């Protein structure tokens, strides 16, 4: 029966599956590292090419030439560009991202980033989790009730969702759930290390604001993929064997829909991180996004550079993780 259903007679165990997956992962990690390396060079030289002098912006227009020279010597800005880049890169691999020029002058940027990273990662993952849960529910409901009222409602929610930018969604949530019903705070952050429930409570609105437009995109993708999967011969075969519908849905339909769904989720990480920047600002969350905006207004090039590279690294890491999950779900992916 299992041959007829299109699955292998003996599904390979998890340990057998890891071999090719590990090799594939290694390749993905390597290419990710190469992109990160190219990214650091691109960011570094773009910053150098831009008009504006970090010494002038840190010391003010009235700075004496001696003060500027001293500043440049102190921060190693007087060396040739290639030397500065290699120095920066070597430092980067040792966790040294230089010193802050303006936001917290003299403080190591690496320490600043480490201090701010947990909040961003927490809110980002919370948002991702909410977006996945919301979209699984909406997308599955819509696909299973295709053409019926449930589908129309779910699809409409999704269309309105993509029309709500996260910063506008933030205020709708603040109006409704914070100022209106008083359920959640409109501002502030609690670290999960202090209190996990406190952190979830404090960051629910920002996470939901980031998640809502993402959930809409995910749900639309999932609906389209599910509808296509539902029409596959193996689903018809499974039905004709009298397998129960929830079983078919989980083991045949959702499982096969997961790879295209997760691919879209991986692509949207770039937008989730963009949303984090603005939403952190609105809700006063002390994360990398807030740090980068502070760095932007203070023209602190070291902070800007470090934040950009850290965001790039997060995107690349999450994409490798998504590739890994896809490869475990469907080993065929490793051949591509």
């Amino acid at each position, binding site marked *: 029966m299992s041959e007829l259903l299109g699955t292998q007679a003996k599904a390979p165990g998890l340990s057998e599956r890891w071999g090719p997956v590990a090799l594939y992962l290694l390749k993905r990690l390597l290419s990710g590292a190469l992109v990160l390396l190219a990214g650091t060079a691109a960011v570094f030289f773009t910053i150098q090419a831009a008009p504006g002098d970090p010494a002038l912006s840190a010391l003010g227009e009235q700075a004496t030439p001696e003060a500027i020279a001293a500043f440049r010597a102190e921060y190693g800005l007087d060396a040739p560009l290639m030397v500065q880049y290699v120095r920066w890169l070597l430092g980067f691999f040792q966790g040294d991202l230089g010193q802050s020029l303006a936001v917290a002058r003299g403080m190591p940027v690496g320490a600043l980033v480490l201090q701010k990273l947990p909040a961003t990662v927490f809110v980002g993952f919370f948002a991702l989790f909410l977006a996945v849960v919301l979209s699984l529910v909406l997308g599955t409901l819509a696909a299973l009730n295709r053409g019926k009222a449930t589908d129309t409602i779910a699809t409409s929610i999704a269309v*309105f969702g993509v*029309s709500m930018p996260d910063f506008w969604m933030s205020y709708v949530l603040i109006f409704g759930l914070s100022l209106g019903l008083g359920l959640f705070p409109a501002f502030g952050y609690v670290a999960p290390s202090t209190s996990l429930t406190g952190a979830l409570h404090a960051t629910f609105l920002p996470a939901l604001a980031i998640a809502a437009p993402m959930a809409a995109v995910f749900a639309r993708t999932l609906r389209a993929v599910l509808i296509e999967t539902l029409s596959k011969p193996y689903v018809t075969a499974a039905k004709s064997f009298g397998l129960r519908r929830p079983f078919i849905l989980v083991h045949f339909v959702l499982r096969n829909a997961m790879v295209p769904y997760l691919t879209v989720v991986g692509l949207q990480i770039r937008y989730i991180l963009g949303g984090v920047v603005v939403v952190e600002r609105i809700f006063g969350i002390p994360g990398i996004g807030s740090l980068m905006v502070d760095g932007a207004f203070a023209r602190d090039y070291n902070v800007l550079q470090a934040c*950009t590279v850290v965001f790039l690294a997060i995107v690349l890491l999450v994409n490798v993780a998504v590739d890994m999950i896809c490869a475990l779900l469907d080993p065929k992916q490793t051949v591509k």
Partner: protein
Amino acid sequence: MTSFRRFLQHRTGVIGLLIVVIVALAVLIGPALIPYGPEDMDFMAMLAPPSAAHPFGTDSFGRDVLSRVLLGGRVSLLISFTAILIAAVLGSWIGILSGYHMGWTDGVLMRVMDLLFSFPSFILAMLLMVLFGFSSANIIAAIALVYLPIFARIARNTTLLIREEPFIQASRLMGRRPAAIMLTEILPNISAPIMVQASVGFAFAIILEAGLSFIGLGVQPPTPSLGGIMSDGREYFSRAPWVLTMSGMAISVALLGINLLGDGLRDLTDPKLRERT
């Protein structure tokens, strides 16, 4: 004409088109029909709630929010539209070159596009704005650069699909120059997916521009923009919520229209997707 008639049968697509036309007319001729300028201050009516005289209320300087939203909408939509137009033209060009020549041209161009595509879009746009200054031209350039790789990939993949088709081979055998083949044979055949992507990208660009202006790294005051008006509104949003709400709803209406129109265009050009929905 037949494809336009087919589009007219797509109910939500037509609704989207109507919304887009109404929004475009409102921002283009609306400001001329309103008795207040976006900079006219009325100190007798500061933070006045919506009324017959001021349908969207007034802000902290007593400026009419409706006329600011319309003019800000014009600024935001023009910036986003120009950025996507540039990204679509440049991206198609890069993608066609890549897909048609393949080899090292393809390798180099696509690695650069991959690198651009890896950066979180908002972060990259923000960095470029800080480095190169807050002029409208720079906002357009930043958004165009962020969206460029998406058009380049689509143009390249579609070009790869059709480059060995008999009609292209025939052109090549006739001794036509590659540039002419790309322009007259390939471009018309990849324009449909580019158009669909442009509508998606237009919505994306509006969100990106509004986000930048909202945190103060985009369009600078006194020029109104939708994100800028929202940013003004958040300062006193518990006392006078209409400034933030009305500008936010204006963004949503524009995005809704563009998204519905984009869905219609996609269903029209991709028969496979049409079956799915």
